[in-house]
């Protein structure tokens, strides 16, 4: 489904990715592990094109997406992807419900009348009920991550990229998030790439594992 060939990325003189080669199969979960600063987040940001690679190729369903520049094409590509940010990245100015359905307006043709139902449904899927009206500032760290996951799920992506989904969470909340990731794969057949430091979590959720070391797998 996703093939990464000789991917390179540097920030100024600092070379982060020095030729990464990786294959991510459809419906499988790949855990990417490695020390801090080895380029794990950079790798998934390159996949979803939040960062532009300096060299190499990224193929998605055999289509080269490495150098897409046009805004419309990028938006089209991102319809297939969901990204769970490390700190949730919920929009402070919107309520939880508005956060969950945010992507529907831009990524799908879902009618507005459906938004409330979808918000409720996706929040229930991540184990949160009746919090649509709350603001992100009123949520705990674990709740923020789950709302963020509900926001990802609302647009029904084919691939979900998780950036350290369990970091900063207590063991119980980490377990809940791990179970959610496994459920999503089993029930919805979602392909996942999980960046993590947590080895226990990596073994529990992944089908394959890749270790980044000195900019290579």
């Amino acid at each position, binding site marked *: 489904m996703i093939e990464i060939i000789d991917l390179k990325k540097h920030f100024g003189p600092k070379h982060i990715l020095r030729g990464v080669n990786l294959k991510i199969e459809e419906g499988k979960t790949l855990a990417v592990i490695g020390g801090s600063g080895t380029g794990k987040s950079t790798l998934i940001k390159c996949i979803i094109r939040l960062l532009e690679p300096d060299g190499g190729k990224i193929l998605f369903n055999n289509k080269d997406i490495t150098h897409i520049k046009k805004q419309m094409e990028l938006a089209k590509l991102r319809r297939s992807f969901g990204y769970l940010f490390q700190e949730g*990245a919920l929009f*402070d100015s919107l309520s939880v419900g508005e956060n969950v359905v945010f992507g529907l307006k831009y990524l799908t043709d879902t009618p507005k009348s459906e938004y409330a139902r979808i918000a409720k449904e996706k929040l229930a899927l991540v184990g949160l009920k009746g919090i649509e009206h709350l603001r992100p500032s009123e949520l705990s760290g674990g709740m923020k991550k789950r709302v963020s996951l509900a926001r990802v799920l609302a*647009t029904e992506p084919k691939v979900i990229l998780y950036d350290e989904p369990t970091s900063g969470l207590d063991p119980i909340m980490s377990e809940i998030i791990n179970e959610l990731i496994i459920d999503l794969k089993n029930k919805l057949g979602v392909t996942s790439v999980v960046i993590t430091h947590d080895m226990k979590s990596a073994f529990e959720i992944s089908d394959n594992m890749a270790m980044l070391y000195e900019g290579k797998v």
Partner: protein
Amino acid sequence: MFKALGRLLIKFFTQLGQASSMVSSCVFWLFKSPLEFSQTMQQTTKIGVESLVVATLTSLFTGMVLALQAGTTMRNILSEPLYIGTLVGFSLVRELGPVLTAFVVAGRAGAAVTAEIGTMQVTEQIDALHTLGTDPIRYLVIPRIIAFMIAIPVLTLCANFSGMFGGFLVSVNSLGVASNVYISDITTYIGVDDLMHGFIKSCFFAFMIGVVCCYKGLWTRGGAEGVGKSTTQAVVTSMVLILVMDYFLTAILNSIGL
């Protein structure tokens, strides 16, 4: 020394290039997608309402002090406080109204815009916008620039009236000018072209404040410290550019007879 100067120049032109690229993206999205109407209205209300009291108060006291100074000077030279309304009106409508209002809005709402967008940048909310299929230029920048361009000219108009009212209070109560004389000094000598002069200036100031504050917010790096730095830079840059633009706009508008 040459190295430092070179670095400064490179930084200046890089920022100029980035800001120009942001403006060209604004033009692209304005034609490519519908305007975020609710965001624009929300921002206009926020910027306008939040700055209204400060802008009118600033102008009120400026009008009062202008009347006092002009009245005292006229009394010393001509033994009578003549043309106070004209002096206060001209100064406010053509110059002080647009400039002071732009200053107030840059300090009040401009700083808030930079801090908000900057915080969104450092907490990955801007990246989240990208992943959710919208561009921050479309969702955040365009509504705010339009909001500034609606709010500032309206606030300038309010500030002009407030300043002239301040001048009226001082002229009538302290300088002994008859109220009808003060009003006729204004209505006789200040025309539509003077109002247009101030209005055009305020539109340019509004566009510049919007671009500078959004740009500084979007290019914030380095956590909470970065947000503080960007906010300060946005306000200082806006204020300096208001004064620079004011000179050139005055020269251009005067040369075309406005």
